[in-house]
């Protein structure tokens, strides 16, 4: 997992493993370790800071809500209680109630489910297909790369919302169908990220050394290239998930996401639109939740990614 290795401490190496010699110092780093640029760069890589942990905590909370929505002590998200209609927050409903008197907190918790499932599935699809294509393109170059990049450029140039509408119309509005549709949309972006990272890894001499050792292409891809490409790709995944949450809500806003009455954050915002003048919280509460979630995903993803970059350059 990215978090684990991203959090790697600079383990001080034992004294020089050359036996007969006395050794000095530790912190096994490149001999240029203290060159100016590294010293400066180290500053930016130091620790993750409280912001990171706050963001990660929020994401954990959202994930837990999604996972345990059915067992959490919240009301039924589909149960309209007319007396609670448009209740303000901090009344009998903690976060207020919507136009039908449904509990907002409960709907948020259940809506998290949709957001989490869709973003995870969509990003996984994009990562698997796009990532593999990108690695292959970056490794083999040549005609395959040119053809793939041309196709991807065409997909990227297509208005994504129109494409998505067509896809949803074609494969339906179930949770899986929507995840799949958004996932397909992510293939080009992932292919690009994976290809760019592969290109830089392939130039490293350890790939050449593996070939000199007689390693097969498959072995090089799996042992030398993949482990070095996967971390930046995974870190990009968090940023992508943030975008997927927004794309899903846009679909929901147009009434094309998971069908009502299943709560989704986008659907809640769409519904709140009607009550903006008298009860702005109906739209605001899901908006703020989504804002925090996307912000956290971006923040965590960004920090992890920059951490990997620092690590790469230190090596």
């Amino acid at each position, binding site marked *: 997992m990215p978090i684990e290795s991203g959090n790697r401490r600079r*383990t001080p*190496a*034992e004294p*020089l*493993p*050359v*036996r007969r010699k006395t050794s000095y110092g530790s912190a*096994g*780093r*490149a*001999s*240029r*370790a203290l060159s100016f640029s590294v010293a400066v760069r180290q500053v930016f890589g130091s620790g993750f800071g409280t912001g990171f942990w706050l963001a990660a905590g929020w994401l954990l909370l959202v994930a837990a809500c999604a996972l345990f929505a059915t067992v959490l002590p919240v009301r039924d998200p589909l149960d309209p209680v007319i007396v609670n209609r448009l209740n303000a927050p901090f009344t009998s409903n903690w976060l207020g109630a919507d136009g039908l008197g449904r509990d907002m907190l409960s709907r948020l918790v259940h809506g998290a489910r949709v957001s989490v499932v869709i973003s995870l599935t969509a990003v996984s699809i994009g990562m698997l297909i796009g990532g593999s294509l990108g690695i292959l393109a970056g490794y083999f170059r040549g005609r395959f790369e040119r053809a793939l990049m041309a196709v991807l450029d065409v997909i990227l140039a297509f208005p994504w919302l129109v494409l998505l509408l067509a896809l949803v119309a074609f494969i339906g509005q179930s949770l899986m169908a929507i995840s799949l549709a958004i996932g397909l949309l992510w293939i080009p972006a992932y292919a690009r990220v994976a290809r760019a990272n592969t290109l830089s890894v392939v130039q*490293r*001499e*350890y790939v*050449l*050394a*593996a*070939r*000199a*050792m*007689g*390693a*097969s292409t498959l*072995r090089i891809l799996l*042992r*030398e290239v993949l*482990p*070095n490409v996967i971390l930046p790709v995974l870190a990009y995944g968090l940023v992508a998930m943030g975008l997927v949450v927004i794309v899903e809500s846009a679909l929901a806003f147009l009434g094309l996401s998971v069908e009502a009455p299943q709560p989704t954050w986008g659907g809640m915002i769409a519904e709140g639109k009607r009550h903006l003048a008298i009860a702005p919280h109906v739209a605001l509460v899901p908006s703020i939740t989504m804002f925090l979630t996307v912000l956290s995903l971006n923040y965590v993803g960004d920090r992890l990614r920059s951490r990997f970059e620092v*690590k*790469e350059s*230190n*090596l």
Partner: protein
Amino acid sequence: MSETSNPQLRARDDIVLKVEHLVVTFDVGRELVQAVSDVSFDIARGETLGLVGESGCGKSTVGRAIMQLPPPKGGKVIFKGQDITQLEGEALRKTRTALQMIFQDPISSLNPRRRVKDIIAEGLQIWERPNQRARVEEVMEAVGLDPETAADRRPHQFSGGQCQRICIARSLALDPDVLICDEPVSALDVSVQAQILNLLEDMKARYQLTMVFVAHNLAVVKHISDRVAVMYLGKLCEIGSVDAVYQHPSHPYTQALLASIPELETSQEDAIPLLQGDIPSPMNPPSGCRFRTRCPKAQAICAQQEPAMQASPSGIGDHFVACHFPG
């Protein structure tokens, strides 16, 4: 390109590696650049051939072309009597194990995500050799790494010099015949450089290696080599034993190279004029002799006719130079 004869190739029966008329080209945009053009030399068993020249002269490309990484555009690489440019697939992969390589940047030569013992065992795993663990420990000890403490670490926990030791251990694990060293010490500090050079000499003796040592530093090359080949803009200028080339440099370029080395000894105001100007672009090399644009001895013929390899006027055996006006 006319095929020149190659008097510098020796008729000995202990020749391990012979490179004939090697040509390597690169695509640069729409143009084809000849990084190496018509280079021939041979290396006898147990010999170290130093390959020197400035950046862009094609010396590293020669090293890689021997490994078929990538295969050269033309010419032959004859290893133990077999032309390996004709090999493909499994056969090529198998032959490569007898030729190993170490690179300039020891840190970029090691996969940051793997442990030292896995890196060193890579070749053994690929070829499913027996007793891998023992072999890994043996080569680690040989290069001065403690298997106990070093085996489970990752490359970033080591200094540049240590990483170069790991690279050397990796290249030795498969028990190669030929070790190609591509600028192995130029990224290291002076004090560490000496350690690695000494180590390479030790390893050569211990594992009966034949070496190709590519470097730009003439003093380093002199220390480690038996024979030296000087390259300029993809061509071989001069080749001969270390003593012949360093004591009696016959090519004006070799003379200029030797004169420009900053030396520690008190000022040697040299008779040989310093080179003017820069190396021309390999995209568009000068006609005739490629060195003529910077050569103090250049005459009309140098622009018209490419000089062929001929015995050097030094009179020392196996000392050859490609110059119209050697000496």
